[in-house]
């Protein structure tokens, strides 16, 4: 964990309400794909957690959806502005379990953290299959970017306007060695039930601190209480306890 000032290099819309922001500065504390950062936004009290979409030396890429005051403020920021960012939060995905045909499944703004994971897996010589789930064609982003990495990419849309009609679980391949997953909780649950392999699932929770101090983000797991921000956001399939 490090609290750093990062400078905005770019900030542009990928879809109607999903933006990509690139930031420059000290990212040295980001050590695993699937970690997140926590961003101080002027006029708001709590920081806003956003997953690392990609990180290359001193360049950080975030993809965020405008849903409220904080992300709206972010969408209006321009190149050159500085942001106070807590970096290197959370455990992130463990790539050791991937096997040679891992399946990466992202839904909506759960897609971004899988990009960094996919890129690092490919650098290790592992070629993942990626399923990207959206509601409709207009909401799709980062398909090409995953393709460029060399992944096999399957897109699902709920309305069938592009790719497979339905949910991510409708596009599962026959063969895969492991599942890495990030998206809304109903999607995580569907994948949990469908997946034939073990896997790692990234969760979201409202956060007070983002670094383990406040117990704001606690959840029950089979192996005891965990803080999503510090012991997660990635949980192993074996420890997940669905509450409802």
């Amino acid at each position: 964990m490090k609290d750093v000032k990062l400078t905005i290099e770019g900030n542009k819309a990928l879809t109607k309400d999903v933006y990509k922001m690139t930031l420059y500065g000290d990212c040295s504390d980001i050590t695993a794909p699937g970690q997140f950062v926590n961003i101080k936004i002027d006029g708001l009290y709590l920081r806003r957690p956003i997953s690392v979409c990609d990180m290359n030396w001193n360049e950080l890429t975030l993809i965020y959806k405008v849903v409220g005051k904080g992300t709206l403020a972010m969408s209006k920021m321009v190149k050159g502005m500085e942001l106070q960012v807590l970096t290197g939060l959370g455990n992130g995905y463990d790539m050791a379990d991937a096997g040679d045909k891992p399946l990466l499944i992202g839904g909506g703004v759960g897609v971004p953290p899988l990009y960094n994971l996919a890129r690092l897996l490919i650098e290790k010589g592992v070629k993942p299959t990626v399923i990207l789930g959206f509601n409709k064609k207009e909401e799709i982003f980062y398909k090409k970017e995953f393709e460029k990495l060399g992944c096999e990419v399957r897109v699902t849309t709920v309305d069938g306007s592009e790719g497979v009609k339905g949910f991510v679980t409708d596009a599962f391949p026959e063969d895969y060695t492991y599942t890495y997953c990030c998206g809304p909780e109903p999607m995580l649950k569907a994948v949990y039930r469908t997946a034939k392999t073990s896997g790692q699932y990234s969760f979201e929770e409202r956060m007070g601190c983002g670094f383990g101090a406040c117990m704001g983000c606690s959840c029950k797991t089979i192996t005891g209480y965990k803080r999503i921000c510090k012991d997660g956001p990635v949980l192993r399939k074996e420890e997940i306890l669905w509450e409802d």
Partner: protein
Amino acid sequence: MGRLSVNLCGIELDNPVIPASGTFGYGYEFAEYYDINCLGTFSFKGTTKEPHFGNPTPRIAECTNGLINSIGLQNPGVDKVISEELPKLKKFFNKPVMANVSGFAVEDFAFTCEKLDKEEQVGWLEVNVSCPNVHGGGMAFGTNAETAASVVSAVKKVTKKSVIIKLSPNVTDIVTIAKACEAAGADGISLINTLLGMRIDLKTRKPVVANKMGGFSGPAIFPVAVRMVYQVANAVKVPVVGMGGVSSAEDVIEMMLAGATAVEVGAANLVDPLASKKIIEDLPKVMDKYGIENIKDIIGGVK
């Protein structure tokens, strides 16, 4: 003794800055980040007789200059705190620590305090009476002078350590409660705990925290905290530990002018993990600006 030192119930603190209970865990998240021996002390997460998971999530809501939390006293229970947390703490914190204790019945408080009394590293027991009293119909202990005092009496019987009673601000008359606690033997009074607050999500039309209401704290509550510290400090002889929205060295000085002997910093630690450290570092220059030689000289110094 430096110009920042204060004496809290017989123990000298290097400075009056104390991270508040519930915002500093048992210290390691911050110790990973800076040497927490720079602190006056810190108050660890509210500890109860039994382990508690606390309330369902979401437990946090954003507010204008503050937040609502409804953690619900998540903690591993006093036995684990003694067997696991305190030994860990000893490795990176070499000062007396403030043990924050909660309970749902008078005997709970006494049980937990009696156990913590034997722990060498515990300097003070900060007894938080803001939690609902299961035997008293669910209203918090801290909202009634007699029940608050009965907790003090019960705890004083089982410990030789200083007992600082932590009061809830959600009351009509904080002074009467503080005086009752003093009369029952409290060695200090700390205040304020969180204000009861609520936020509603306009999209889902549900309360933002699953528990509907929660404790509101942060800079927004500072004027209420200063007022209550002032009222209580003028009514009791024991030291007052002030808190509520403190986020800067200036805020620490204002609290001390109002009557606080030491000052806790809560929510600020969550949005800036270095907050308490920065406040301590800023204190000397802010004291210079306002012509304060020794910080202890300004305690209760409001004219």
